[in-house]
């Protein structure tokens, strides 16, 4: 029994649904090996440092793992939601939520906008380096005064002169931006029109543009290896070609990405949840108290059986919904259900599992302690549970 070990002998892995094709099973095997050899042995040090080495992105890029959302012409493989779900689930099994966050914000939550609404010129300029891991992306929407209510954001972008060719000047600030400290390309939401959702646009802003500064590298409860920034934009000048998607079409572009993002958070919930159960099964089957193992206490068996069943259900819905999304069917209800409930199930799981680790689970350095901290944000980021439940309620 070693609560500090990351790969116990007993495993809790659910078989793939029959519709997961062979190439995605092979993708899973490769990501799994990558996690075991390139992430798990080093990520503890990244948590300490609060930074993930750029080399990790390059290695992922070399294996083609950063381009699944991008077209082949730009160095990607254009794979769809099911592939991203497999990728996100396996990364999540690393037990390092911060690493999963840094990678998937780049692949599935920021650069994905560029592929979805970018012009061929914008794609050609950025995507090859994004797929190679040379350029790391961030999505900068949230502000200190506008989180759940995206339409309330106040960072402003104005044209510096008449005509479509004029530069844009961006002023304002952003809060809680993943990859905002060490990333290279910010996709920034800013107000270009009137109040509300219809006045927002997206901009491609290299982080080294004069006027962009990191106000602080934020200290967090979890996701310690992932950098999170407060950013200032002071008279930031970008060319007309930095406008991503149409003018005042930013909210629409962000919304288009929601379903995929919510699905990804479901995949993290399934992956982290199953891994937490795996670690805990290993622990309780060996830890003894009152003359038998903790696993032999019926209360333990029932609790873990219930949690395992709940994770299995989240996972089943995530896979089924990914298939539907790839098939072009509307899944806004399903993805809102997944985002509202997946992280809540995960919360139960990680805290239930920490409880079964006893005092050991409260100690820094045990994966379950870190997982309990890392899981917490999934109930807030990308749409808090309550906001998601409103989205569900609107549709039932």
């Amino acid at each position, binding site marked *: 029994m070693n609560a500090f070990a990351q790969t116990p002998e007993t495993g809790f892995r659910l078989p793939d649904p029959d519709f997961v094709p062979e*190439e995605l099973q092979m993708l899973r095997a*490769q990501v799994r090996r990558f996690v075991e050899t390139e992430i798990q042995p080093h990520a503890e040090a990244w948590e300490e440092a609060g930074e993930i080495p750029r080399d990790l992105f390059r290695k992922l890029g070399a294996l083609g793992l950063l381009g699944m959302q991008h077209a082949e012409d730009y160095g990607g493989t254009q794979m769809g939601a099911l592939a991203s779900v497999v990728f996100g689930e396996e990364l999540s099994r690393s037990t390092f939520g911060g690493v999963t966050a840094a990678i998937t914000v780049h692949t599935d939550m920021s650069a994905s906008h560029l592929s979805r609404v970018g012009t061929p010129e914008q794609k050609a300029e950025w995507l090859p380096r994004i797929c190679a891991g040379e350029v790391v992306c961030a999505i900068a929407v949230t502000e200190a005064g506008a989180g759940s209510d995206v339409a309330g954001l106040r960072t402003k972008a104005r044209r510096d002169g008449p005509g479509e060719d004029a530069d844009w000047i961006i002023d304002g600030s952003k809060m809680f931006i993943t990859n905002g400290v060490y990333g290279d390309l910010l996709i920034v939401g800013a107000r270009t029109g009137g109040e509300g959702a219809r006045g927002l646009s997206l901009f491609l802003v290299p982080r080294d543009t004069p006027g962009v500064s990191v106000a602080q590298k934020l200290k967090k409860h979890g996701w310690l290896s992932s950098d999170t920034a407060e950013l200032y934009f002071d008279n930031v000048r970008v060319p007309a070609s930095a406008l991503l998607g149409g003018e005042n079409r930013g909210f629409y572009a962000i919304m288009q990405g929601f379903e995929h993002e919510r699905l990804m958070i479901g995949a993290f919930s399934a992956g982290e949840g199953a891994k937490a159960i795996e670690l805990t099964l290993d622990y309780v089957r060996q830890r003894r108290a009152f003359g038998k193992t903790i696993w032999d206490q019926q209360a333990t068996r029932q609790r873990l059986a219930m949690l395992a069943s709940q994770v299995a259900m989240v996972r089943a819905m995530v896979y089924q919904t990914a298939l539907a999304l790839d098939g072009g069917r509307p899944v806004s209800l399903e993805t809102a259900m997944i985002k509202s409930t997946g992280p809540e199930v995960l919360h139960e799981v990680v805290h239930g599992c920490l409880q079964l680790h006893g005092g050991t689970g409260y100690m820094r350095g045990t994966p379950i302690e870190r997982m309990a901290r890392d899981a917490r944000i999934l109930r807030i980021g990308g749409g808090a549970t309550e906001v998601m439940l409103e989205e569900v309620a609107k549709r039932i």
Partner: protein
Amino acid sequence: MKVLVPVKRVIDYNVKARVKADGSGVDLANVKMSMNPFDEIAVEEAIRLKEKGAAEEIVVVSIGVKQAQETLRTALAMGADRAILIEAADDVHTDIEPLAVAKLLKAVIDEEQPGLVIAGKQAIDNDMNATGQMLAALLGWGQATNAAEIEIEGDVAKVTREIDGGMQTLKVKMPAIITADLRLNEPRYASLPNIMKAKKKPLDAKTAADYGVDVAPRLTIVATTEPPARKAGVKVESVDELISKLKNEAGVL
């Protein structure tokens, strides 16, 4: 030169093997299966020979259940050129014994005429360490087992092997059989674009009957048991106590 690499689908090295309730073998139902790690090393070595210009084509062969196709696709995604699947069993629990495998491989080799065969030194399921040797005998070819380094010089393969007390270097005239040891190389990842390309590489499906080889087992498995659980150790306070225990309790001094 054409290089042929036989690959076996085995229980994944990460999985804790469990014995079937009736003791007839290891339970493989719903268990993760992967390419035998030594075979992965053999595939990697063949790809490196190709990259160095010492080989032109890599053919991978797997013998077993239909699902061994996945194992072949992995080899194709790593960089092999084409694959041959020989279906010889329906049940994942049916093990094809080394002699039958060697006979089938001989039949494939007679057709394919490779200049070199690189196999894993053994499969991690039964640890027989026999197929390569049997195949060399059936073909009348030279063999170099447990290779830690391979160099091709004209029609000779120079093979370094780890033996008790040091390294031994052999020269074998090709065609020859080489079996791969753990330290020969570290297999590469299959990149996602290569995984996608592997779908389009040729994979021939055959059956054992196509080659007229009888795969019926010649060995009988009497029993399969789990290794005995390790007993907890004891901590000693001093060297004196250790020596006393070794003398009086363990009786080894």
